[in-house]
């Protein structure tokens, strides 16, 4: 079974408005992480690989982003992914989901896999080279929740969003060394869930809480360091950022919905004042 996980690197340092108010700046100590939901998607893929090792299951990880994204791809390989694919972009700031989805899908269409090796074809591959594509329900920073469903649509495969459970065991239809159909549960509002069966290839977007992502193991890190990430530049004009139909005009703080009286003084002063406010309102005896 061939699995692909799409991950995004996000900044974990403090974020502030930049001088012009047109975008944000990151704190001086630039630190990065894999967006939380994508990390859940990666963990789920590795759990599947461990469970279906007998089906020659492989996990590849792809990321579209700046040079630093390589660090997150390496981390993914450290968690247990077999191959890393990096589509390098020079974009600063906001990138719409439709542009990222187009870039990911364009790349996937060129991939052909033989065994555990990735090759890039000149022309588009007619069939989806992966049985299962996983990604997070949304990125932690831009929260668009677009890339997964859009990639699926470009590839012409079914998509299920907000998946909270992948059923490993029930009536798995295994033929030709691949699983034919899987059963998943997706989450709706207010604790409601929906059971769905889907034929592969399919794309699932993963909701947090499905698993606890592991830390990279030392042996995997050593293995990942020996292995090169496959890197590609954006060459397709259509996927250049000037084609992004969405333009960011500015960034601003949201308006206050309530007074938000700020308590001043020392920690002790604030604690005393809160105590008095709550007593006056009869909330504290």
């Amino acid at each position, binding site marked *: 079974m061939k699995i692909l996980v799409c991950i995004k690197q996000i900044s974990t340092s403090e974020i502030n408005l930049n001088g012009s108010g047109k975008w944000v700046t990151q704190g001086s100590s630039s630190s990065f992480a894999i967006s939380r939901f994508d990390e859940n998607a990666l963990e789920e893929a590795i759990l599947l690989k461990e469970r279906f090792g007998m089906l020659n299951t492989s996990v590849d990880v792809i990321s579209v982003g700046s040079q630093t994204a390589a660090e997150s791809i390496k981390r993914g390989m450290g968690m247990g992914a077999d191959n890393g694919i990096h589509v390098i972009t020079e974009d600063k700031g906001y990138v719409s989901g439709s542009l990222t989805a187009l870039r990911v899908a364009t790349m996937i269409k060129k991939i052909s896999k033989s065994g555990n090796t990735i090759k890039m074809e000149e022309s588009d591959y007619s069939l989806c080279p992966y049985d299962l594509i996983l990604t997070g329900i949304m990125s932690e920073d*831009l929260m668009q929740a677009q890339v997964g469903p859009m990639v699926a649509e470009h590839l012409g495969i079914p998509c299920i969003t907000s998946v909270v459970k992948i059923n490993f065991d029930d009536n798995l239809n295994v033929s030709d060394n691949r699983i034919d159909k899987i059963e998943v549960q997706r989450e709706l509002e207010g604790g409601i869930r929906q059971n769905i069966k889907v034929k592969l290839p399919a794309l699932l977007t993963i909701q947090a809480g499905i698993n606890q992502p592991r830390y990279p193991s030392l042996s995997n890190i050593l293995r990942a360091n020996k292995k090169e990430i496959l890197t590609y530049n954006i060459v397709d004009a259509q996927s250049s950022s000037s084609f992004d139909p969405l333009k960011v005009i500015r960034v601003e703080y949201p308006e206050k919905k309530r007074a938000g009286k700020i308590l001043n003084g020392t920690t002790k002063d604030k604690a005393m004042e809160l105590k008095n406010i709550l007593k006056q309102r009869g909330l504290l005896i």
Partner: protein
Amino acid sequence: MNNKTILVIAEYLDGKLNPITDELIACAIEIKKIFDLKAKDISEVNVLYEIKVIHFKGINSLESEKYKSFLFPIIREINPSFILMGHTSQGIDIASGLAVRIGCNCITNINKIIYSQPENIDGSEGSKSNILFSRSVFKGKFNTIVGVENLETIILLTIQSGSFYIKDCCKEYNNIISNEECYLSNVDDSIISLIEYGDIVYSCTTNSKLNEAKVIVACGRGIGDKENIEYIKKMAACFTGSAVAGSRPLIDMGWLPYEQQVGITGAIVSPELYLAVGISGSSQHIAGMKDSKFIVSVNKDPNAAIFNFSDISIVEDCLSFIEEFIYSKQA
């Protein structure tokens, strides 16, 4: 007269109209107002925007692949300027894929529609349209204001719940809103055969404990460690009729049981006092607690989004503040 359509897709669950639909209509009215205003400005009266609300019948809207295939030709036929859907689990499952199929612009999780003078934004990188869209980013800390270059292409928007309200002034628009029912016909699309939608499962999250509590002390990732939940419990013990709750990331990490989650995917609460400790205030959490009678928040980031929804804002390290509060209460 050149009519343009703002298309609202009414959302249903279990045959019942979802309240998000009212918000979609309120948002559609705001969009219409902007174009009416623009028409007045430039005496351009030959474009009239009408609002059409479509109610799809005979189809389970939770069967997203089928729903998409069904919606596609209808949208082609109507050729609206705007399509509005909820940024709900249904909207997320349908909208983005549908936008690719239509080949239209897609902006998700909108919380505000903004009228803009074109000269303000008419720069080399700016948008030339009068209408801008605000969407929440970075866990609700900021809104990004975005525009599109070309209003000739359909724009599909998904709307963040709790952002738009039907106000009294909307009543005057009642006569320009048309409701239409649409029945499912057979859709010929091979993708439908690949997916089998099953039962709906109700997990027991609508628990009475949080709903009955007069005071809820809720914690988020800002408390740092699982062990620090003890502080939250001690804080809650200061109040009678209190309960401990958590934000989603904390539940996902297994620090608190699922029943104690406040937010759109957990419990929706409105206690006398909601005390948010170390919670950044993502829209998913806000949706679960914004109707609380009195909201006090403690967070060390002065720009945390939760402070926009608080009556009292305390910028402090969570744990030191709790220690001091408990001490002051005993004093």
